[in-house]
């Protein structure tokens, strides 16, 4: 991707975020005033500031575009995304969701080995260590420190 394009996209995204902030401020915060400052004041100010920053970013991107077009020396963006971190994130989400519906043990004994497999872990010994650690962590957190974990999720009355 070209650098000016990256800057332009970032600027447009930030601009959209600022518009969303404006919308949320007016729709989700009731207007009331005490000593000249309402609960809306700061979020509204922040939304406006982000809007101005976004315009500056877009301006910078356009300036870069016209300048580079003159010199015919187009800079490349260093931003690149790989699929794998997002796959890992999906697994993290699956772990959290399984914990809600299945509880700590079902989530840990199903999702974590899958994650380890995807992370190219093939040694059976490490899977056994993981199983031991899952139980050990439960004993430390739930039994000893009395931080109640969702044992069986929604299926097992938490």
């Amino acid at each position: 991707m070209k650098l000016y394009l990256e800057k332009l996209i970032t600027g447009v995204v930030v601009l959209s975020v600022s518009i969303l902030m404006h919308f949320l401020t007016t729709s989700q915060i009731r207007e009331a005033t005490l000593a000249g400052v309402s609960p809306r004041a700061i979020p509204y100010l922040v939304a406006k500031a982000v809007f101005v920053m976004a315009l500056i970013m877009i301006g910078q991107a356009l300036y870069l575009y016209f300048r580079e077009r003159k010199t015919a020396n187009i800079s490349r963006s260093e931003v690149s995304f790989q699929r794998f971190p997002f796959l890992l994130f999906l697994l993290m989400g699956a772990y959290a969701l399984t914990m809600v519906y299945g509880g700590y043990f079902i989530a840990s004994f199903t999702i974590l080995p899958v994650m380890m497999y995807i992370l190219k872990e093939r040694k059976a010994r490490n899977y056994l260590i993981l199983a031991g650690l899952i139980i050990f962590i439960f004993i430390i957190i739930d039994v000893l420190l009395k931080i109640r974990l969702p044992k069986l999720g929604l299926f097992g009355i938490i």
Partner: protein
Amino acid sequence: MFGNILEGLTSLLSLEVFLMMNLGILAGLIFGSIPGLTVLMAIVLLLPLTFGMDPVSGMVLLLGAYCAGNYAGSITAILINTPGTPAAAATTIEGYQLTKKGKAVKALNMALIASVMAGLISTVVLLVVAPFIAKLAVKFGPAEFFALAIFGLSIIISVCSQNLLKGVISGLIGIFISMVGIDPIMGTPRLAFGSFNMMSGINLVPALVGVFSISEMMNISEGFIKKWRSGNNETIDVMENMEGEPLTKEEFKGSLKTIIKSSFIGTFIGAVPGTGAILSSFMSYNEAKRSSKHPEEFGKGTLEGVAATEAGNNGITGATLIPMMTLGIPGDVVTAVMMGALIMHGLPVGPTLFSEHAGVTYGIILSLFFVNILMFFQAKFYIKFFVKICNINKEFFTVLLLIFCVIGAFAVNSTMFDVFVMLIFGITGYVLQKFGFPLIPMVLALVLGPLAETSLRQALIISKGSYMIFMMKPISAAFLIISALSLGISLYQSYKIRSNQEESGKSAII
């Protein structure tokens, strides 16, 4: 004050505290010595364990990891030219040269002694200075607190002078997110979408865990792919570099002045919010080189250089707690997590901490002395174990870290809502980082936003809507002027960096 110190010492006299101190140090040494794993990760990992403990034991656990992690980054920096933590980058300059000369053991000993001494000096400063600042801060009203919050925000944003615009946007997003929940003055819900979970606001701990641990795990996973693609699963034998004579008394004496000077540099920098260990280690190194009788030896492997960087790096450990404990302004991200832990234990971070919870507060401060002393013995006797651990499987650690992140977020309110908050912050942090948005301003704005807003509105109620209240009070006016100056300087720096870049670009074309 002496009564409080005695009370603090008494709170440390328990087997639980001793065990937690050792456990924290062990975790810090392990995480610090493995390149790619950070002190912050160690603290996040230990965070859920602290919820079931009394505040002193919990904080001692985190402080142990903090101090030991800061030191342990030097092990791989010295032995394999790879800093275990970013702050140890400066140590590689002299440390690895010493290893190449066969003086690795001397360098490791010097790094340990310098780190412990700097940690102790920093703790003394914390013990002496913090109560005075807290006493002064008790007299602060809403106007002063507002100015203080602005000062904190301005310093943090000014640290991102390389990309000021993105730093400011990141900070603004943080402020907006911190507005979620019940309005502190009028009690109306804000940005809550009718959800009870949202009404209680965005909890700091899940947000921090998400932004720094989940996004970091995603970043690390990119490295896994590179490793798999290159098929390079070979591990460097770190142990083979562990050779040479131990440090002599003369060598230690020769570097003593540098250690003390660098410790104070580290302490001073650590006390300023938003600076951190990287800056202090490089500044200490430069100062040591400047004032050395043999500056020509720097860069070729000198023990004085290792002493300077490690003392500078560890000098911040006690000092970063000064703004956090006295004013409620975290000096860096690690102290922001620790601040979250203190709040979780029901301790009001800020000036009242010293008056209302003196025993606990002094216990936490004094524990830093014991942490540094115990760290010396653990590192001295088990250094070979920590060196071996550098080759541990990071993929396995990632899975383990996920369990602790989820439990850590869940344990805050025993609700899965916080786990999902953590995940959202995680992916947002990852994407923002990719596009060059610094995350520290966002997190610190999340901490300082509510303080700034509440005190602004309280001050305006007192002044009946007049903004002059902020300039009429001398402390508030001073903080606001310093904030403006700080922002001005960072704008100038940003402009200078950009014009330098443009000039170098032009000369490259020519």
